[in-house]
């Protein structure tokens, strides 16, 4: 049985706790990377991460690109939608097709 995690600044992810998602509030990037490495190896299949944090540690996230698990999904935080998640989807299309053809 796998679990679901949420990472990011505390205010953005606090609400998920009541749904049974494990929350990991982190503030700085080194702590975030450490936490990410720890939880990706301890049975979490899905890790939601706030877009702000995701853009700060994007090189670390790339390590999980070709692994089947965990799925690391950027979500908008409390400070609003930065478009990082949408951009990532466009990047997939670019990688596969060569240019972003899906609008």
């Amino acid at each position: 049985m796998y679990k679901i995690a949420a990472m990011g600044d505390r205010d953005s992810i606090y609400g998920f706790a009541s749904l049974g998602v494990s929350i990991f509030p982190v503030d700085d990037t080194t702590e975030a990377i450490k936490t990410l490495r720890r939880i990706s190896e301890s049975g979490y299949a899905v890790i939601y991460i706030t877009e702000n944090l995701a853009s700060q540690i994007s090189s670390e996230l790339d390590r999980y690109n070709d692994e089947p698990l965990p799925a690391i999904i950027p979500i908008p935080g409390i400070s609003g939608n930065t478009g990082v998640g949408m951009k990532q989807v466009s990047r997939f299309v670019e990688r596969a097709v060569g240019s972003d053809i899906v609008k």
Partner: protein
Amino acid sequence: MAVMNVNPTRMELTNLKRKLITARRGHKLLKDKRDELMRRFLDLVRENKELRREVEKGISEANQHMAVARSVMSDSALDVALMMPTQEMGLEVEEKNVMSVMLPVFDAKLKTADENDIYSYGFAFTSTDLDDAVKSLSDIMPLMLRLAEVEKSCQLMSAEIEKTRRRVNALEHVMIPKYEETIKYITMKLDENERSSTTRLMKVKSMMLEDARQKALAHDREVAGSN
């Protein structure tokens, strides 16, 4: 395109022809695989974008409720309310094989039987905005799980498509032309050898004939002299 460094022999030619047939068949299969992957990938990406729009809208809605709740309740009261969740969400993960790419399929399992059992606090000391926030998050959760599934699938598929595309291109533009060139080179070399041996034989034959004629002439002269 460079010709491979091989001996122009008949055996080499047969081997190369066999390799060319295999390369052509592999190229066709990989091209089919790429096309099918691409078709599914584009469907998935469209779904992914759609889901992402919905999820982002839902989360920002929930965040608004949360912000209001935070402003009307004290931090410590909020902490206490959300500290001990009653619900625990687990995931069953299965794998689906699409064109030899393993895609995850998530199936959420809740600890308590009632899926509406999401409020981990008494209603006496909390604001209704917190209820709204939790409710809107819980409404968006199935979509978020589907998003995770689709987005991971897109990620894995894009990697596979890239790999397949490279293979197809390598076969189409490097391997197959190289084999074709080499086969042509060996065929021409063999034909050339055959022609040269034919001319050599013709030359030898004419020399032998000339020799025999001279000998016959000399013999005739000898016979005529002795008479």
